[in-house]
């Protein structure tokens, strides 16, 4: 049975060209960039080249790029590092309700243990942060705004330019978690107007275990990992050259073909969404209809539960994900779906299909072929009959 992987928002495969670029740096060129000999020098060159490649894509200076071990680590550094370096100026941090746990939990940690004051902005029914809500929330002692570029579950894109301009006007630092946007959306840091930006390798056909934090020159920030002073003193620990080379290569490749690939993905995605909504009653798209990632389709199927649907799809070799409570560890439905204002009874049946480079039209046809039968089967044994009118806003 052919496997149809529609969970690219969770992670992507490693592009063979990326793997090839990494190959040299495991066995052949394994040196430590800090060493004073030729082997070390070769590693240092690879590191510097990678940094320049990344800086080219981000339209920033190479020294504004700090490599880390993951998107989560970059986010931790951005939030904790900025808070600790600026807390004499103020302790107020603003974020949004649909952020990744890496952001929300880090903010809550600072609130609980280091005296931060936290404002979590609500989102509208499409999942976007309203600029006026941010404007209102900024106070004299606000030091950081951290709002995601694109949401990992529903794919909604925030208007980062508008939001960062508001922060700038009030002289507040602005960080954006762009892990889901990487490879799919414009990430020119000058255009976005951000002070800090997080990206990682595992969502754009690069390796897992590597991320980066863009830090605009002049930003006050502390390291969260101390030691030998690598990465301009901001992230100690011997650099993983193969992962960094792989990440930089993957980023460059993704931006070489971004526009054509996005067009292709969006067409397939639209076919999937239209196909589902027209052939299966009581279904609807979550998130913004237009301002969304080209590869994301998050759809609610009323009267059934997401995990049950996933298991049926899995049986057909189709891999997707759900925000249902039963698939999570805390038994609460997804905070993102709830933040959209959907009633609880409609929050258990959302499925995320996230398309990728390997997704073909045949894959989409296959999903559209098996899905109606699966949904019918589950609805047939469901005692629930939720009315669409009660759910849609």
């Amino acid at each position, binding site marked *: 049975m052919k496997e149809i992987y529609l969970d690219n928002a969770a992670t992507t495969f490693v592009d063979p060209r990326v793997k090839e670029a990494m190959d040299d740096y495991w066995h052949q060129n394994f040196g430590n960039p800090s060493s004073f000999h030729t082997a070390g020098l070769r590693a240092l060159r690879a590191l510097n080249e990678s940094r320049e490649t990344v800086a080219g894509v981000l339209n920033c200076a190479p020294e504004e790029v700090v490599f880390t071990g993951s998107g989560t680590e970059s986010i931790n550094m951005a939030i904790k590092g900025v808070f600790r370096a600026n807390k004499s100026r103020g302790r107020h941090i603003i974020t949004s309700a649909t952020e990744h*746990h890496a952001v*929300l*939990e880090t903010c*809550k*940690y600072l609130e*609980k243990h280091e005296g931060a004051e936290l404002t979590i902005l609500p989102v509208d029914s499409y999942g976007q942060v309203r600029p006026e809500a941010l404007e209102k929330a900024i106070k004299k002692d606000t030091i950081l705004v951290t709002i995601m570029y694109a949401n990992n579950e529903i794919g909604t894109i925030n208007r980062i330019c508008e939001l960062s301009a508001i922060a700038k006007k009030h002289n507040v630092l602005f960080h954006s978690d762009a892990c889901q946007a990487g490879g799919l959306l414009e990430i020119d840091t000058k255009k976005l107007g951000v002070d800090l930006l997080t990206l990682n390798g595992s969502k754009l056909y690069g390796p897992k275990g590597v991320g980066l934090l863009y830090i605009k020159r002049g930003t006050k920030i502390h390291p969260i990992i101390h030691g030998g002073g690598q990465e301009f003193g901001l992230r100690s620990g011997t650099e993983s050259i193969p992962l960094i080379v792989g990440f930089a290569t993957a980023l460059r490749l993704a931006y070489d073909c971004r526009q054509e690939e996005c067009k292709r993905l969006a067409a397939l995605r639209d076919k999937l969404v239209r196909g589902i909504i027209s052939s299966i009653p009581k279904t609807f798209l979550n998130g913004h209809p237009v301002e969304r990632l080209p590869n994301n389709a998050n759809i609610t199927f009323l*009267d*059934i*539960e997401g*995990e*049950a649907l996933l*298991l*049926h799809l899995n*049986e057909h070799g189709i891999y997707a994900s759900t925000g*249902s*409570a*039963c*698939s*999570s*560890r*805390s*038994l*609460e*439905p*997804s*905070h993102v779906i709830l933040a959209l204002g959907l*009633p*609880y*009874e409609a929050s*258990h049946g959302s499925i995320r299909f996230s398309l990728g480079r390997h997704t073909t039209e045949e894959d989409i046809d296959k999903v559209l072929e098996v899905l109606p039968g699966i949904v019918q089967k589950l609805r*047939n*044994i*469901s*005692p*629930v009959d*939720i009315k669409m009118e009660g759910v849609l806003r």
Partner: protein
Amino acid sequence: MRGVEFKPAIYPDACALKRAKELESWFYTDVVKDHFFNPRNIFKTRKEIDDYRPDGVGIVGSPACGDLMKMWIRVDRGADRIIECKWQTFGCASAIASTSILSVIVTENGGMALNDALKLTPRDVVAHLVDLPKRKIHCSVLGTKALRAAINDYFKKSGQESRIVVEGARIIDKVMKVTDRDIEEAVLDGAVRFEDVQKRTKIGILDKSCIQEAEKLVRFYRERYFGEK
């Protein structure tokens, strides 16, 4: 919020590795999958439901919580046994498989005596499914509750009110009005120690006199559902 709450200080806690291993058993046993993909004793069409003449109907749960179960039973009055059991479930695979196998348990071998059916526990259901991932046990508890509700409905309709079993909830914490059922739910939801239950229910914070009994109940329910002391 799906994030794991930050628990400070001493690392690791005693169950850390055990929990990590449990995640491996995320995938279901063949029996669970069989009942999930081929559910037994279900209605094929809406019309079948409308035309069905049950002796008792029970419904438990709510769609807002992600689990809702409905059971229809027919009873052989002379023998006092369940002869048919139909059901519908809104919920995950564990919930669906649990209800399906429960409907088989109560109808196989000429049907289960009502008095025995009333005593069925979630643990009996899980045993028939061979096993469920631990974090999914709570998905199986509604089945036996729906069954008891259906049996009680039958008692009511057949003039046997004296046999109705009230789902007892006894107040343990007199200030916060926390019941034994609340403790049971907390344990099924994954609470392991008294402190976990306290976090969820606020038990024993003001009414300290109940702590000893509450601790005993936590152990009792851990043992009952998870076979742990």
